[in-house]
């Protein structure tokens, strides 16, 4: 058995993991919090992405929208990460082999890479274009990538239960 799979099995069999898995309500309650937190992440980042595409809030500078939504996005991300880890804890042996879970992790890594590239390139000169109604093509590409990847994360996440 590979080391990572072995660790997943240990986590799965731990008393805390078993407790979440076997409790009547714990798993469903954590899952509901997880879905709500993802709504917070994806919904708020979508507002920024749609602004960058010039579809909403055109008169408001991109940086202003970004400053307004980032605290919400990050709080949502923290809550979904913690609740997601608890769900993983309870089902880690199954998750290790679940193709949809693997896809979700890959998409999460890519969606993290996207702002990294964005912030080190076109966003450095954001003050030159923050007030433009439709932003430069590289910013629009980042927005489309973000919407697509987050959409993929929601889809892959929902599909986990179907495998």
């Amino acid at each position: 058995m590979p080391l990572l799979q072995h660790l997943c099995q240990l986590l799965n069999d731990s008393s805390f993991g078993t407790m979440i898995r076997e409790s009547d309500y714990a798993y469903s309650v954590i899952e509901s919090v997880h879905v709500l937190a993802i709504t917070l992440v994806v919904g708020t980042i979508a507002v920024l992405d749609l602004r960058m595409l010039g579809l909403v809030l055109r008169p408001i500078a991109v940086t202003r929208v970004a400053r307004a939504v980032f605290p919400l996005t990050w709080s949502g991300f923290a809550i979904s990460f913690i609740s997601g880890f608890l769900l993983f804890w309870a089902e880690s042996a199954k998750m290790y082999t679940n193709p949809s879970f693997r896809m979700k992790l890959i998409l999460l890594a890519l969606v993290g890479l996207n702002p990294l590239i964005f912030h080190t390139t076109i966003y450095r000169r954001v003050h030159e274009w923050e007030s433009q109604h439709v932003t430069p093509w590289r910013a629009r590409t980042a927005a489309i990538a973000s919407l697509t990847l987050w959409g993929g994360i929601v889809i892959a996440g929902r599909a986990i239960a179907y495998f």
Partner: protein
Amino acid sequence: MSLHSWFIALGNSSLGHAMQTSKWDFALVEMLHLLALALLGGSVLVVDLRLLGVILKGESARLIGRDLSRMLIGSLIVMIVTGIALLSEEAGKCYFSPAFRWKMALLAAAVLFYFTVHRVALLRSDNGGPTLWSRTTALISLSLWLGVGVAGRAIGLL
């Protein structure tokens, strides 16, 4: 025809049949429902936090409300269409589900509130700061939409 027989008819329709027999048809519709939920949640939150005076304080509430209402109405339409498809899987059972009934009642209240009191609050606030009135409106709106989501989640659990 009574409301109950409409639900039964939906369950017996070809749509209902597809939802009941194909696992992936149901999954696909569920995914679309969730994607639209994220967009709806985001637009509601940003607009109501503006009314509460938490974010985008100097910007026009009228503008934010108008632009994000397109996002809200678009995702609401997707949610209703996919919601009917999801309902068709167990329409007869949902008719009697208290969670489903709560969800529909809260949804009706949230939509009604959104197009009336909430709209007036956005127009009145415009560039101004939050008032007791706009704050109350935002809190009621957030509670109603959150209630729709919680009741919706409960349909599958109760």
